């Protein structure tokens, strides 16, 4: 009898989970229907490619943010960090042209620098907040200012532009495609899969969940809380670096206005996707869909002139609220029962 109960229970649970996981996906489908209704061009291959390619930046960063938030942290510095890393990459590559020429090596070295800086910047955020015992909010608010200042300083207040020859070599990383799928989308997909595996299938991911849901329990379970938390920031930094690597060849420039408010977008994508801001529960696929949703909303607004431009923000805000409401509504009701 009890085993019978168990089977019943687990199947219905299965359905439940599907619903929960389906939520963001359904909201996304709804958006796509709206988009198509507004303008047929929405469903054109080109437009879809645009949406997914754009979603890649925020999405990759948001995958990192999913780790940080799942483990109970927050990182406000990602937008500035992206600007800073872009700037540093450009400066390095421009300098290297003189010695190495505008070849693959130069680009690879730029990429290397980006990864080193991303990991370093993430480690700074993580170590200062864990070892210094300062709230992550404050630390990353501080580094947000610092990284942005650094890029402004490097650019002398203006714009850092990548050498045009290097751009040519580097260009395919953004504009290229493999079997018709844009490279950034492939990278996004790869990062998401890696993130999924890391968060859901490895001891490290499990530890992130544990720390986010109860730090004390994690400590009593022989988890090196500080180390794991720091690593989540490092992963965030690495994700920012990857996003930057595909961002730089797009316009070949970086300035103090690069990446402004990306942190908000990234966190929003994470939360829309169902990850809990208080930590303890994270969902990479939700994040991916959250990022695509955000991009899609922006795209839809550009496809119609029915709405006054001045009200774009309002429509965007409304859609976000409604989408999250629709996606959460049902399982919440169940829970509160």
């Amino acid at each position, binding site marked *: 009898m*009890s085993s019978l*109960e*168990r089977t*019943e*229970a*687990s199947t*219905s*649970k299965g359905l439940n989970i599907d619903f929960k996981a389906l939520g963001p996906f359904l909201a996304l489908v709804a958006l796509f229907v709206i988009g198509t209704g507004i303008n047929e061009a929405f469903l054109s291959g080109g437009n879809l490619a645009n949406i997914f390619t754009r979603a890649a930046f925020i999405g990759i960063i948001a995958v990192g943010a999913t780790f940080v938030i799942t483990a109970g942290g927050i990182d406000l510095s990602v937008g500035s960090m992206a600007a800073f890393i872009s700037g540093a990459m450009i400066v390095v590559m421009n300098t290297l042209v003189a010695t190495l020429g505008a070849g693959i090596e130069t680009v690879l070295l730029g990429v290397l620098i980006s990864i080193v800086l991303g990991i370093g910047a993430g480690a700074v955020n993580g170590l200062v907040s864990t070892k210094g015992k300062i709230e992550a909010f404050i630390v990353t608010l501080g580094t947000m200012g610092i990284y942005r200042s650094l890029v402004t300083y490097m650019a002398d207040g203006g714009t850092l532009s990548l050498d045009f020859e290097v751009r040519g070599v580097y260009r395919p990383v953004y504009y290229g495609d493999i079997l018709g799928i844009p490279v950034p989308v492939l990278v996004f997909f790869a990062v998401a899969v890696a993130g999924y*595996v890391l968060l859901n*299938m*490895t*001891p490290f991911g*499990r*530890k992130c*969940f*544990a720390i986010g*849901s*109860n730090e*004390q*329990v*994690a*400590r*009593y*379970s*022989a*988890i*090196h809380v500080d180390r794991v938390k720091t690593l989540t920031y490092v992963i965030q930094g690495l994700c920012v670096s990857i996003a930057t690597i595909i961002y730089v060849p797009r316009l070949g420039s970086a300035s103090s206005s690069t990446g402004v408010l990306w942190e908000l977008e990234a966190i929003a994508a994470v939360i829309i996707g169902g990850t809990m801001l208080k930590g*303890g*529960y994270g969902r990479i696929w939700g994040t991916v869909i959250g990022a695509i949703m955000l991009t899609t909303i922006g795209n839809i607004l550009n496809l119609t002139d029915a709405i006054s431009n001045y009200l774009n923000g309002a429509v965007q805000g409304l859609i976000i609220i409604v989408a999250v409401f629709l996606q959460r509504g049902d399982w919440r009701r169940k829970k509160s029962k």
Partner: protein
Amino acid sequence: MTDAAVHAVDPGQQARLRLSGRQICKSFGPAQVLFDVSIDLHAGEVHALLGENGAGKSTLVKILSGYHQPTSGELVLDQAPVTFADSEVGENHGVILIHQELNLAEQLTVEENIFLGREIKRGWFLDKAAMRAETRKLLDQLQCNIDPRTRIRDLPVSDRQMVEIAKALSKNADILILDEPTAVLTGREVDILFDQIKRLRAQGVAILYISHKLDEIKAIADRVTVLRDGRHITTEPVAGLEKDDMARLMVGRDIKQMFPDREAVQASDIALSVRDVSVPGQVRDAGFDLRRGEVLGFAGIVGAGRTALMEAIIGLRERSSGDIARNGAPVSIKNLQDAKKCGIAYLTKDRKGSGLLLNMDMRPNLTLLALEKFGRVIIDRKAEEAALERAIEAFDIRAADPKTKVGDFSGGNQQKLLLAKVMETDPEVVIIDEPTRGIDIGTKSQIYHFIGDLTKRGKSVILLSSEMPEMLGLSDRIVVMAAGRITGILEGNDRNEHEIMRHATGISGKQGVSVHE
């Protein structure tokens, strides 16, 4: 407490029926946990509720007090059907529940918690002085000597429980329900609580009392209702029942031997040796040897520093001095990971705060401490599932639905899961702090035998417990602590309650004056 005083309802006083639950059924999702349970609570009577872990006791009392709604069935208060839409309505009708799990806001102080939601006001403002005075009075009534301004998170669990009791008492209940109030209390505190219960009974309060300690039921209850697997088994006067009868009614079989047989252990074979461990303000110069295959008991009054000592040994607390050796070889233990590598495992007494991830289900909880066993790169889910099945089997963990969040488990099943979690590391030395807190008598016996088996396999156990029978029944030797120091190590015939108390209160032993009779 051991003497089984028998109480009957005062014949002169009409046992007035106050609250009944009729044909209560309850399901959580697909899992039904209560089947047509009925119960009557009379004024001036202590009614005990017995049942194994997961039998549905807590669920039933939550329904009686408005925290849950029954799936079917009804509540009748003073002959009239009622619905408690939420606990507030229940409380307004005088039904007060002390939860099994502590229900206090940890960041607030004692007085803030006691008056939470019903603060005393002067005009628009809080009358803090009045609340403090009232809190003081309540605590004094319970002979509880804590500062009303202490934050809950700074209190040991037993004090927290006393705060819960004080809070309930201050609500002037007509119908008072206590769900395992004594699981975390010391003997003295239990006596105080019983005095209060008797006082209330005399005042005509209807009391429903849940406990796994059958002594207590004998001592305080007039009638007892037994639940098994969510079904009502019987309701009868306590007077006619012996402890064994109650255990049989609960478990559905006889419990033959509570404690395992102990074999003598080799005094020279030292598994763990601890020297001069100090933790500023909590432990001073503590040292002892743990023999292989031994159960070493640690006794002492609350706050004696037992937990602090153990946590210092395994690196969860910073120690200012101390050397630790495993099997004669010195080891450096800086954190729990190190301790784990040395084959030492620790079971915390605070299962909610530091034991289990309440928002997750069983599987991640079970494997969290021994995660590397399930794959260093990718967690082997199959192995985890297998481990879970083994643990459910071995520790008799009963969850109506294995996917429920651990936070929704019955208290006893949480404790079993915690034990299973710790044992996943295959430790050589197990330090267990209050291992049977909230565990039913049948399972308790299982756990004791489990500990016995461990030692037979050459593992060593350190047992911290405030339950005297458990301490005496299991331990080969008993270390007694008082005020952060080890005051004595009792062996052979010295292992008795009297000696323990003398050492624990400092009357005899290193610090005190030795009085021999």
